[in-house]
């Protein structure tokens, strides 16, 4: 099982509605994925090109985010003046800073080893946790989120543990995330191949292997279509993948279309879900162009 949802809002004046429209989509997929849920949100990057956003998660609930921020700001780097700001919601925080991942991640690992870095990028913010989609949406106030596009997932675990780290979306690199409905039977051999390339894994989850494979191919210069075509040869299993990048949403189903996907498109938005019942509440849905993508047909929408 598992449910996937995606929403891209075409008109900037409607982008404040992103969270409000997306929450019922996520809740609509609760029966397909009752054990965990997550959301990756993409906003227009800040004007300052030096600033990166880090989505941080503290499973212990013990970390005091403002203390972490002050600690970080007081950290002296000979070569870089630290600029940082932070917003938090429950055991989740978004840190804006000019520090690059090779500096920030080891600092966090040393001083705040409980804290996960869920995502890094200029546009992406990521939330994921265990529990019902409704409870998670309330906990992190998803309905208040604004942005150009988002990718969400509700999980019914079939192959690895139920923990926040095993929930989707998965990220790799910067401003890239993937959610998956389906399962892969060769994640360990994929992982062994990728580890030889120096790629580090956070979990034993099958989707993480696909996510890191695709991000690796993109980083090596493939476009998304080429990366997915190579992935289709490597991935043994079935899948509907929904991917988000800083400026696009992409959707593809495996050659046998084992797992569902429905797309509804209007002048205002493109909405994607595993089933229509997650789309039924959207504005002007009765006028939307509704279709199910054919197997291996790659759909890309630009934000």
């Amino acid at each position, binding site marked *: 099982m598992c449910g996937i949802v995606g929403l891209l809002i075409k008109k900037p004046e409607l982008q404040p509605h992103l969270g409000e429209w997306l929450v019922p989509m996520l809740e609509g997929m609760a029966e397909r994925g009752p054990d965990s849920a997550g959301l990756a949100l993409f906003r227009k990057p800040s004007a300052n090109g030096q600033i990166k956003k880090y989505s941080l998660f503290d499973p212990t609930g013990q970390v005091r985010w403002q203390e972490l921020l002050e600690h970080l700001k007081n950290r002296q780097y000979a070569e870089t003046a630290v600029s940082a700001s932070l917003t938090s919601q429950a055991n989740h925080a978004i840190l804006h800073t000019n520090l690059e991942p090779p500096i920030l991640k080891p600092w966090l690992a040393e001083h705040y080893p409980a804290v996960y870095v869920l995502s890094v990028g200029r546009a992406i913010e990521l939330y994921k946790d265990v529990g019902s989609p409704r409870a998670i949406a309330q906990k992190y106030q998803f309905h208040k989120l604004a942005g150009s596009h988002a990718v969400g997932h509700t999980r019914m675990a079939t192959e690895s543990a139920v923990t926040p780290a095993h929930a989707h979306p998965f990220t790799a690199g910067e401003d890239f995330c993937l959610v998956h409905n389906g399962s892969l039977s060769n994640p360990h051999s994929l992982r062994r191949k990728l580890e030889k390339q120096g790629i580090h894994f956070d979990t034993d989850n099958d989707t993480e292997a696909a996510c890191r494979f695709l991000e690796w191919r993109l980083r090596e210069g493939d476009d998304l279509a080429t990366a997915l075509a190579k992935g289709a040869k490597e991935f043994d299993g079935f899948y509907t993948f929904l991917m988000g990048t800083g400026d696009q949403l992409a959707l593809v189903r495996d050659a046998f279309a084992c797992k*569902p996907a429905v797309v509804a498109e209007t002048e205002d938005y493109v909405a994607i879900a595993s*089933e*229509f*019942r997650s789309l*039924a*509440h959207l504005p002007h849905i009765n006028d939307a162009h*509704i279709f199910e993508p054919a197997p291996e047909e790659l759909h890309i929408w630009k934000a």
Partner: protein
Amino acid sequence: MESVTFDLANTTVRQINSFLHDRDKLRHVSLVKILNPNGAHNLACGIDSPIAVEIHGHAGYYVAGMNQQARVTVFGNAGTGTAENMMSGLVHIKGYASGNAGASAHGGTLIIDGSAGLRCGISLKGADIIVGGSVGSFSAFMAQAGRILICGDAGDALGDSLYEAVIYIKGEIKSLGADAQIEPMQESDYQAVAELLSKAGWDHDPQAFKRVASAKQLYHWNANASKEY
């Protein structure tokens, strides 16, 4: 005879289906309308009464599954497993139907005005399926009896491992499945196509259709060609 309307905004699928299974309550009812289906699963499943059901909106999985006698119309699209295991009656989808439409249906008629997804008519056991658009890959896989009429195109592996079911198709076939072959149309085939088209009320020329049926080479084990399997 009266009509009864249910609105899924304020009732449950289980309440509606319980009503549709209650022959005493249905005695004086000729039409049941269901509003705001919003993709709900299992709508109008397991009916065994000669009533009409109208679903106004998009239905979810298994709509009109196991149908007997009823005439179920969906004014919208339908999800996976439309009219699965239908025994008799008529199911009419005004939009498209997702995967496995008419799977294992023993009798009755399934009309899909739009296209059908993958595996349409898989393991068909005697029903008629009439599709206005195209069908996805693996349609009619292991279909044992019944007829499938396709006014559009078919994806890969059409009619793979067919038994006695017959496919009539107007458009292009991306590929035929194992043991499926295009056969010459006989007069009885043109009559069958005309009959199926008239059930749906569509105006296509029966002469434009091809017949796909089983070559029956998989019916018996051929020890001399074991490498073919």
